[in-house]
């Protein structure tokens, strides 16, 4: 009974994590601008990876494997947003501007930070 429930829970986590990863890759390919693509790519590091790792950890029971999985999950949880922020900061400092909507009446020249 408990084994079946654990199987169902780990199946749910793994499938939703895989779906999140594929959706993130589609966004990485299809979105129009660098900063929007950055937003799509950051989903992989937290949403998809964490759900997949939780599913694998449920599947492996309580052992050393679970400890290693949790270490990997914690590491990805902190370094993924850090790397994403570093990429965005480097692109902004290098002068890559986000693509904005064409509204010249609301954005006079020189107002761009």
């Amino acid at each position, binding site marked *: 009974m408990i084994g079946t429930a654990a199987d169902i829970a780990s199946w749910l986590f793994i*499938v939703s994590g895989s779906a999140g990863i594929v959706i993130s*890759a589609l966004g990485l390919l299809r979105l129009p601008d660098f900063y929007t693509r950055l937003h799509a790519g950051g989903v992989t590091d937290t949403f998809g990876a964490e759900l997949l790792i939780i599913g694998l950890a449920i599947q492996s029971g309580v052992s050393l494997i679970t400890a290693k999985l949790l270490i*990997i999950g914690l590491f990805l949880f902190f370094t993924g947003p850090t790397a994403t922020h570093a*990429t965005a900061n480097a692109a902004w*400092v*290098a002068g890559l501007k986000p693509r904005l909507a064409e509204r010249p009446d609301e954005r006079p020249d020189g107002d761009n930070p």
Partner: protein
Amino acid sequence: MFLVAAVALLIAMALALIRLFIGPSLYDRVLAVNVFGTKTVLLIGVVGFLTGRPDWLDISLLYALINFIGTLAILKFFRYRRLGDRPPSEQRP
């Protein structure tokens, strides 16, 4: 169920590779390499479970460390054009 995750990871890695080749700016390519590395970490772990050898998680953890440091090193190099050594004007002959 591990096979589903492995196939999904392979599809996502292929899409990230397309972005890596057509990415118009440098930072698109850096982002694609970072995402590709994260997916490689997950793929190594999933394939370890798929073949019944979860000891591969050690390799996966090592790859996560290398991926993070590599991304930061690429970004630092393209911002400062050097990796921590002195600029040429300060170097003694």
